[in-house]
Every structure is written in C-alpha cells, then in structure tokens.
C-alpha cells in the first residue's frame, strides 16, 4: 500500500480532473467550429477588403445547432425566430405555405422518404420546384439517387445548400412497416 505514496495520489487526482474536463467539453458545450474568412483557403488574403467580411462562426454560433452542412438547423432557426429573413424584396407578398407530407415509396430496401411541404414552403415558392423540377402529381416524377447525386431533383439544393446527401435518414425516415400500419 505504501508503494502508492503521494506521487500516485497526485497522478490519480490529475487523471480524474483531466478526464472530467474532456468529458464536459465533448458532451456539454457547443463544440461547433467554423473556418474564419482568413483561414478558409477560399478568400484571397492579399485582398485589402478581406478583413471587412464577416466570418461564418460570428453569426452561425448563435443559431440552433445541427451536425451537418453549416452546422445550423435552418428550419428551426426560422421557426423559432432566430432569423427573420425577408420573403420578398417589397415585403408585400405573404409566405404561402403548404402543410402536406408526401410519402415516396420507390426506395427499394431503404426506408420510405417523407417529403414535408411545410419546411420547404417556408423558404421556397411553389414555382421553384413545380412544374419544372417536380410534377405536382405525386409519383409522376422519376426521382432516383443517381440523379440526385448529380444535382437533379432534390439534389438541386440538398448536397449543395440544404443539408448534405450523406444525411440519408433525414429523408429516408419512414420504415416500410410503419407506413403499412397507417390507415
């Protein structure tokens, strides 16, 4: 027992403190990080105006978190009033939303896709998708993942601006069983 001594006790206390600090940092706090304008490799550091531009982290750290894309849950940010983006430039046109979910079943072994019109119409206008990208009749558009990955259909936005295409389960969210049980 003597062999432990003071050194051992100090070691144990130190180890405990460090591990607790690491655990708190990993689970509790907001660990999101964004590259600043100066270090993003995209903006030219020789540009005299570069320092005038806002870095993403300054604004986005105040918005509700998400694990992908901008690391911001944009739908929540809008609904909860974190952001109040304009609807039109003249501020007269009201937001025309539609609360209707579409269930897309041609997904082979993947869970069915639930398309929520509401979240989309809060940002977009009907004409952004209809009739050019998607026909209004459910099931009339031959959507598939190959085309989506190449930037067609949902891929016009998802994978470029809206959440990335690596977030499979966010769209493929309805198990086949659950869909059958529905009346």
């Amino acid at each position: 027992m003597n062999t432990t001594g003071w050194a051992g006790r100090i070691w144990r206390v130190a180890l405990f403190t460090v591990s607790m600090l690491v655990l708190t940092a990993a689970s509790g706090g907001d660990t999101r990080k964004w590259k600043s304008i100066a270090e993003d490799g995209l903006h030219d550091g020789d540009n005299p105006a570069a320092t005038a531009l806002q870095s993403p982290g300054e604004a986005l750290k105040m918005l509700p978190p998400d694990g992908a894309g901008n690391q911001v849950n944009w739908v929540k940010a809008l609904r909860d009033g974190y952001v109040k983006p304009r609807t039109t430039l003249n501020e007269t046109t009201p937001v025309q939303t539609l609360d209707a979910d579409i269930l897309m079943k041609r997904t082979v072994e993947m869970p069915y896709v639930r398309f929520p019109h509401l979240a989309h119409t809060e940002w977009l206008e009907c004409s952004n998708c209809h009739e050019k990208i998607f026909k209004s009749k459910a099931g009339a558009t031959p959507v598939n993942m190959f085309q989506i990955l190449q930037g067609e259909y949902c891929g016009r936005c998802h994978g470029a601006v809206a959440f990335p295409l690596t977030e499979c389960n966010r769209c493929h969210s309805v198990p086949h069983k659950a869909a059958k049980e529905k009346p």
Partner: protein
Amino acid sequence: MKTEVLGRLRRFWIGVAMFAFAAGGLAILAPEGNAEYADVVINNYSDKAGMRPVVFPHWFHRVRFRCKVCHADLGFQFKAGGNDINMVKIIEGQFCGACHNGEIAWSVENCNLCHSAVPNTPTQVHESTLQKLVAPAGDRKK
C-alpha cells in the same frame, strides 16, 4: 520500490492513452473542409477581366432572405455559374444588383468585398456532397 516505479509508469501510459483518445475525438469533431458549406465561387468572367472571382456565401444571405427572394423573384437558377451574370446587368439592377445598390446592401463600387476569392478558383459550390465524395481532400489545394 520497483513496484512503485512500475505503477507510476503504468498510470503514465494510461494517461497518455486517454489524452490520445480525447484528442482523436476532438479531431473528428472539428470541421475538415476549407470553405463554408454552400459558398459559391462565380468565375464566369472575373479571371479574364483581371478581377478576383466572386465568393457568394449562402449562409450570410439566408440569414437575411428566404431562398425564394433570389431563386424566384430575381430569377437565379439553382446552378453555380448557370446565371449569365455580368456587371452591366448588376448595375442595371438585375441579379445581385437588386440589393447591391447602396440601399439594401453595399453598392458596386465595393469591388473587393464580392471579388474576394483566390485567383483562378473555378466556378463551383464549395463543400458540396459531390465534391466531398469525389475529392475528399479538396481539389482546390495546389
């Protein structure tokens, strides 16, 4: 005496292992990309005109405007480089010029605020899923 040294050594290595584990975890959590998600570089004419290419940050604009303001009202196509934007059109109030007129947003005299990308950066949406899957390390790095 020997056991004490051994015990200390073992604890030391446990400490090192824990630190390595934590550092690895943080490295995974940290963003690996360069540009911000959905930053669009537009270089249809810039390089040829001796200007830096334009960086359009989607994140900055969607805090202030819904997608439809630009993509419906102003007629921006959902395609990087797919809008034949030039400075004449902007000065006439089309595309960026609908806001970048000194009233809603900074005016066209502030060239360097938009024309801010590293020269020769091609037109593209940065950090897109396709870009990351095809060129995970970022193809822009020379």
